[in-house]
């Protein structure tokens, strides 16, 4: 399907911005695991963070498809995928829940600086003992007068070490299971909140992730984002947008890998010929192209569905699963085509591979995306069934 004129204009704008302000390989940041603060600020100043946010909330109101195309363009033109991952975590796990679930006061308090690049958001759902089974979380929220008191540990919080505000999911009543979950806006400076130094990850190393501990964190009533009983909906909403959109950067990246692989296969000569003349090299390149062509429509479809106000939970899970697997395979092919050069840091594709591996795990592992699609197709749940007779006392 054709993109609108507005989206094509945005695409050009983002491409020019990326070339001008987000150049450089970022190999050093990857090696040292350093967040690119200047790159972040530049994205804020250029309005990148406001693209999906309605104008009534201070954003550009361009919609999700436009944002997806912008992220694709960044993925193609920016080598530091860690920065792009951080932007995505901020948008889908931080900004969108505030837009969708926040009160007017909460939106006014947080969105301006989250959209102009002065603040960073992240979210804490995963816990040491609650990964795929995220709603078994034990981080607790209990009432104390008008306030809430949060206690618990959140693992692998993207942007945690640099975040100004975290959206924290907690249970208000473990007996209620996911029906007892709420979410909270927790400012960085909240007494009792601490974050570990950045975790030493294999990839996405310039996107700092940390373990967040909360001990008696007192959150005033206006810090409640999704009330008890709405927390699971808030989390699922955030994951629907995230799964649908976060892989767009990899679609752009796969295009860049394809261009580079074609150039390399035409220039590099062995046995007196360009290596692209050898069918096993050419086939890899053809497979890279096929993966792009099958991935792009999946992510664009999420943009179109959400822009029409429709549900896209299953489509987002399918896109996440397919595109992350495609990104890993495309990176493997790119490394192989470049031979020893692809195995060097400066060749950049080994980093793409490390970055892409994370995509099979974050936003719910790919195994869990299959579980989810099966459920949404109407297959029975693999979890123990409960019936009306099993009402808790």
């Amino acid at each position: 399907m054709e993109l609108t004129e507005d989206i094509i204009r945005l695409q050009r704008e983002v491409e020019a911005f990326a070339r001008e302000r987000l150049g450089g390989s970022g190999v050093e940041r990857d090696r040292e695991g350093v967040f690119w603060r200047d790159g972040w600020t530049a994205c804020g100043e250029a309005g990148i963070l406001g693209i999906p946010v309605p104008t009534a909330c201070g954003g550009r109101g361009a919609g999700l498809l436009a944002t997806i195309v912008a992220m694709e363009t960044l993925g193609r033109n920016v080598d530091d995928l860690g920065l792009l991952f951080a932007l995505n975590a901020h948008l889908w796990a931080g900004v969108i829940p505030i837009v969708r679930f926040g009160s007017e006061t909460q939106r006014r308090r947080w969105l301006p600086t989250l959209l102009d690049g002065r603040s960073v958001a992240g979210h804490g759902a995963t816990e040491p003992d609650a990964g795929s089974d995220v709603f078994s979380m034990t981080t607790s929220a209990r009432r104390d007068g008008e306030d809430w008191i949060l206690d618990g540990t959140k693992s692998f919080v993207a942007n945690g070490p640099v975040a100004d505000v975290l959206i924290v999911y907690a249970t208000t009543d473990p007996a209620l299971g996911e029906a007892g979950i709420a979410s909270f806006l927790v400012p960085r400076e909240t007494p009792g909140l601490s974050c570990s130094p950045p975790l030493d990850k294999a990839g996405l190393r310039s996107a700092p992730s940390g373990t967040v501990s909360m001990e008696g964190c007192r959150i005033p009533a206006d810090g409640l984002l999704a009330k008890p009983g709405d927390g699971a909906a808030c989390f699922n909403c955030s994951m629907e947008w995230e799964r649908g959109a976060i892989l767009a950067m990899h679609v752009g990246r796969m295009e860049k890998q394809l261009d580079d692989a074609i150039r390399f296969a035409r220039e590099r000569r062995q046995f007196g010929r360009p290596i692209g003349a050898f069918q096993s090299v050419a086939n890899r390149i053809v497979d890279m192209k096929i993966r792009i062509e099958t991935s792009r429509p999946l992510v664009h479809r999420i943009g179109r569905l959400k822009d029409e106000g429709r549900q896209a939970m299953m489509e987002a899970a399918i896109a996440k699963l397919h595109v992350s697997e495609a990104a890993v395979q495309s990176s493997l092919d790119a490394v192989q085509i470049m031979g020893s050069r692809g195995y060097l840091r400066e060749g950049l594709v080994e980093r793409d591979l490390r970055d892409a591996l994370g995509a099979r795990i974050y936003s719910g592992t790919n195994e869990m995306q299959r579980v989810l699609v099966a459920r949404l197709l109407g297959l029975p749940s693999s979890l123990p069934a409960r019936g009306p007779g099993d009402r808790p006392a």
Partner: protein
Amino acid sequence: MNEPADDADGIRAAVREHLLSDVLVGEDPENLTDDLPLRTSGVIDSMGVIRLTGFLEARFSIRIEAHETGVENTDTVDAIVSFVESKLAG
């Protein structure tokens, strides 16, 4: 086959039929009372709610936002019926 009307009785019939065929397969329909807690007793999880809202959107031509799918609007047949009625009333 005639679709039930979009009044409270029609909505209730459609919701019950969906729940009995999707979540409570093989359950005695009598056990699905209008005030049976569905979410807070774990009969439906949030994925079941996504299927339920998908069904309601298609059946009643309504759009349901994520923030409307919490326990308050989905815990009992009664709550779901009132919610759909309020959506239909615009």
